[in-house]
């Protein structure tokens, strides 16, 4: 079974500063990795995904993440955040077998202030 750990429940940051949201996963099989964003009272929107290939993955809204197999990590980064990036961010993992389901981390609330 897979599990996801998001170490930071909340990350405060000033506008235009860089940010890193941490995600570590545990799995006995090969996995796919995802980052989703959830704005207040909204659904889940995919930011980016790692399926295979290059370990540096670029997503929407200027976000990127790097898959590190040895450290079982998939940290999300953005070089310069905006007020509008304030939201809840979920890291998720699924195995590569059929009928994969997503296992989510507990989420990290990114709070961007002016």
């Amino acid at each position: 079974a897979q599990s996801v750990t998001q170490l930071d429940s909340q990350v405060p940051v000033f506008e235009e500063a860089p940010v890193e949201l941490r995600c570590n996963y545990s799995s006995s099989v090969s996995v796919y990795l995802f980052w989703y964003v959830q704005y207040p009272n909204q659904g889940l929107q995919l930011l980016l995904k790692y399926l295979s290939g290059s370990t540096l993955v670029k997503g929407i809204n200027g976000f990127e993440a790097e898959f590190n197999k040895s450290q079982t990590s998939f940290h999300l980064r953005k070089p310069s955040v905006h007020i509008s990036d304030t939201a809840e961010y979920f890291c998720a993992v699924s195995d590569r077998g059929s009928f994969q389901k997503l296992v989510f981390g507990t989420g990290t609330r990114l709070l961007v202030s002016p």
Partner: protein
Amino acid sequence: AAGVIQSPRHLIKEKRETATLKCYPIPRHDTVYWYQQGPGQDPQFLISFYEKMQSDKGSIPDRFSAQQFSDYHSELNMSSLELGDSALYFCASRPLEGKNTEAFFGQGTRLTVV
């Protein structure tokens, strides 16, 4: 582009009542997933269907049941509702075949049990 449609968007029910949530997947998506997100919680997998058959089961209470119909839409039936069932219920769909293994989420149904 067509997205996952969930109805209703909001639902208020009393304790011990029943509720039915509906999910209409993206066309040509044959796999549907249901998730429950309690207040301040991460989404928890409930159940999934592939080609109208249950494919996986998570932490779904016995009071809940679900099915996928011939047109691939799915319904989550919830009986003997409890206050703790108040949550945001997400449906997601994905095509089983192909390289794109991303799951697309609907906006969710917010169920409030009073």
